[in-house]
């Protein structure tokens, strides 16, 4: 019965060829350090899912942001779990991405023909940090407010362009409703879209070149 259903679907979708070529590919000898890329991807997916769930209740306005998060934590069933995963997952993602890059660096996996994978990986690191920076403001409590005040001020210390950058980040000279709204937009639309796009290219390159094996003594 299931075989028939499977065959019917498979005949039309033809996913097996895709699976065989993309996922069932040969790997160099396994090593746990090589799983950190997948772990980063998994965390990205988890952050995406819990983030989508959080937007069901979160309201990006100075009047409601703090209260809506208090409500998620205390009022909604399992709100503490969803936000907890998002909160701790964010820190874990920064750590995992960093250790992943460290491993690529130490094993010299960034060399020919994988330079582009490495460069895109740097873009992914910066975007991940951007997610952390924009997400930090959203609870709109004192720590978030002042961290963003300081963070945007640091960006504003760039010579010549600093004042413009500060205003562009804050949506004006001061931290305001505009800042919260644009950080929210960046956090849930711009940065995730850019991340997803670059992750797609990153994965394509990994499948194209295969995973690097560890350099041997002779190399």
């Amino acid at each position, binding site marked *: 019965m299931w075989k028939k259903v499977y065959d019917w679907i498979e005949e039309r979708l033809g996913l097996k060829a895709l699976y065989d070529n993309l996922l069932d590919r040969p790997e160099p000898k396994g090593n746990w350090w090589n799983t950190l890329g997948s772990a980063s991807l998994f965390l990205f997916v988890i952050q995406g*899912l819990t983030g989508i*769930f959080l937007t*069901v*209740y979160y309201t990006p306005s100075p009047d*409601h942001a703090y*209260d*809506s998060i*208090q*409500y998620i934590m205390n*009022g*909604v*069933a*399992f*709100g503490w*779990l*969803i936000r907890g995963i998002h909160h701790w997952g964010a820190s874990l993602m920064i750590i995992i991405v960093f250790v992943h890059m460290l491993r690529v660096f130490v094993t010299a996996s960034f060399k020919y023909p994988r330079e582009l994978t490495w460069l895109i990986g740097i873009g992914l690191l910066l975007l991940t940090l951007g997610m952390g920076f924009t997400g930090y403001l959203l609870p709109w409590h004192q720590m978030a407010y002042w961290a963003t005040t300081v963070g945007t001020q640091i960006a504003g210390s760039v010579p010549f362009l600093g004042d413009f950058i500060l205003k562009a980040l804050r949506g004006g000279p001061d931290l305001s409703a505009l800042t919260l709204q644009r950080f929210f937009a960046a956090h849930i639309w711009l940065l995730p879209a850019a991340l997803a796009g670059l992750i797609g290219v990153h994965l394509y390159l990994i499948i194209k070149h295969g995973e690097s094996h560890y350099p041997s003594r002779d190399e």
Partner: protein
Amino acid sequence: MSGSFSRRDFIKAATALIGGVIGVALGVPAIGYLVDPALRASAKEGWVPILKLEDVPVGKLIPFSFTRVQVNGWERTSTTFGGYVLRKSEDPKDMLILNSRCTHLGCTVNWKEDAQAFICPCHDAKFSKEGAVLDGPPPRPLDRFEEFRVNEAGVIELFFKAG
């Protein structure tokens, strides 16, 4: 083992099993999180204390008011309701509790002793002591709180229903 269940099969089965457990452990709370507002009991109905029975002399209209707080998520909306109690005899059950919300457009009516009527300030509607329409545009008599009781402490309570 004759190789019918290989190392690869074991890894596959273990991955599916652990993945399934994690999926259920996260999926069920996620659904609960989404439908949570639909599962909450409405706090709109309930017994509301209004006046002490001993403070209401027979045959005299005594005004009262109470406030209901509606909580939606993190927002609280409080609405004040008012009315008049009229005891028709010594029997605590023989009581009339009128809602002072005018049945025309919802303004608050006031009892005027000299006119012996409830007067609505908006369109000069007039209601009798028992709430019947005497004059003006209202389509029906003043609403009554039909369900009431006197509790052990001698306080009149009415059953509040939303709407």
